């Protein structure tokens, strides 16, 4: 009964979310006529709507959290910049310092913001660990994950033998799914428990961030190569540091293969060791970024053809794509966790042929 209602709720919230994103996309591009208006005063700077530039801007990281712009009103949250340079040391200031009252980019304390990157005016290296939009979203997802799962953990601790209740019953099937279908199947009954915390963290981290990325105005965290690269590097270490003798013999001296073949096989296997996490990195990054690009492109069509009537076709289709993206958000989290656990399973396997 409650399961059904939850399903219904989720179902409707998907539709509402889809509508939201479609509407948001409208408002996001509502600044284009305004921009055109602004350029009337400076006709030499006249620029047409550039879908590619806009999309890349939306999927990229930025130093402020930009929601929408209507006319001259910019709905943005300035974020803290944390910058280290050799001459000035560690500096912490608001990203709003890079914008003047006309919303134009200006230098601040010998630093300037160009194309979303902070450069020093004197050309020295800048170590930028600012809380960018992605980092802010990352922290938000971390807070969300911690509050939800530590809360659930407490409920489990208090009454371990009771049937799950509330939010606990939403996540329990997913936790059991990760345990039984992903960890147990690929790692094996004997060792799976050791890797459960890692796999669950990876799964829920990716899933939550994928979902947060779909919220209008959300950041494209899991579609950022830096994030997926770190995830892949962690997966690489988890896999290879747990590698048993059988795994390494398969890499360096594949059994049952003629000796001369090893000249070819061993380099291929070594490349494979690095290729596995590399594919993890690219897969998650490309899937999430592609999803965002498709959604943004669909809505851009209206502005490319400058025809609002196109919305009749675009809105249902972008709604459809949004629902697909919600599924993809889960599937990508599942695939990443699944593949990591198959790599771990292969690394710790100890039987002989």
């Amino acid at each position: 009964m409650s399961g059904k209602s939850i399903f219904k709720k989720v179902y409707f919230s998907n539709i509402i979310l889809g509508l939201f994103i479609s509407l948001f996309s409208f408002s996001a591009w509502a600044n284009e006529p305004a921009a055109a208006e602004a350029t009337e005063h400076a006709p030499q700077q006249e620029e047409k709507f550039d879908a590619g530039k806009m999309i890349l801007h939306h999927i990229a990281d930025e130093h402020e959290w930009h929601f929408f712009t209507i006319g001259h009103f910019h709905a943005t949250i300035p974020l803290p910049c944390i910058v280290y340079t050799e001459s000035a040391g560690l500096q912490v200031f608001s990203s709003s310092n890079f914008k003047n009252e006309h919303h134009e980019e200006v230098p601040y304390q010998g630093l300037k913001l160009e194309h979303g990157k902070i450069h020093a005016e004197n050309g020295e290296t800048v170590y930028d660990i600012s809380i960018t939009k992605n980092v802010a979203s990352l922290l938000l997802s971390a807070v969300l994950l911690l509050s939800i799962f530590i809360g659930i953990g407490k409920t489990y601790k208090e009454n371990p033998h009771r049937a799950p209740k509330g939010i606990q019953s939403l996540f329990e099937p997913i936790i059991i799914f990760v345990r039984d279908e992903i960890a147990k199947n690929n790692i094996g009954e004997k060792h799976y428990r050791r890797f459960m915390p890692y796999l669950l963290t990876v799964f829920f981290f990716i899933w939550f961030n994928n979902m947060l990325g779909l919220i209008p105005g959300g950041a494209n965290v899991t579609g950022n190569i830096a994030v997926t690269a770190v995830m892949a590097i962690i997966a690489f270490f988890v896999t290879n540091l747990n590698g048993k003798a059988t795994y390494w013999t398969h890499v360096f001296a594949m059994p049952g293969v003629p000796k001369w073949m090893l000249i070819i096989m061993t380099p291929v296997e070594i490349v494979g060791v690095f290729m596995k996490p590399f594919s993890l990195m690219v897969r998650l990054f490309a899937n999430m970024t592609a999803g965002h690009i498709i959604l943004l492109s669909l809505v851009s069509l209206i502005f490319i053809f400058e025809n609002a009537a196109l919305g009749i076709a675009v809105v249902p289709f972008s709604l459809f794509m949004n629902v697909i993206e919600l599924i993809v958000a889960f599937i990508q989290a599942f695939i990443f966790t699944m593949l990591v656990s198959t790599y771990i399973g292969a690394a710790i396997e100890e039987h002989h042929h």
Partner: protein
Amino acid sequence: MELITPDFGLIFWQILVFGILFFLLAKFAWKPIIQSLHEREESIDQAIKLSEETKKEMAELKAGNEQLLVSARAERDALIKQAKEAADAMISQAKLDAQTAANQEIEKARVAFEQEKVAAVASIRKEAASLSLDLAEKVLKSQLKDKAAQEKLVSEWIADVTLK
């Protein structure tokens, strides 16, 4: 190109955030969750096993009871049969005994009767003999009053004797 160039800042934060997240979740969320899920499954499993065992025991007990009942019934039947046989044997023995006793009585009676008969016959004979002797005496006495008659008699006897 910018899209596939990882940012130093984001790498730094991702390592930090993911590391802290992993540490905290592993300690305060995943450990109790996995542990209690495991415990709950174990306890459900045990409960099911116990109920199955109990069911099996009950079935065994029932089967035992039935067997007991069957054997008791068989024993009862055997006892009844035995008793009946004993009774029959006793009856037939009694009959036989009675028959034998009766036969003996009859035999005794017959023997006694025979003896009585023999005795009676003997006494009758004796009586008859004495009677006939008396009679003969009287007849002789009357007939042998004259000589002629005596002689005639003697001659007849002699005649008889020779005849025999």
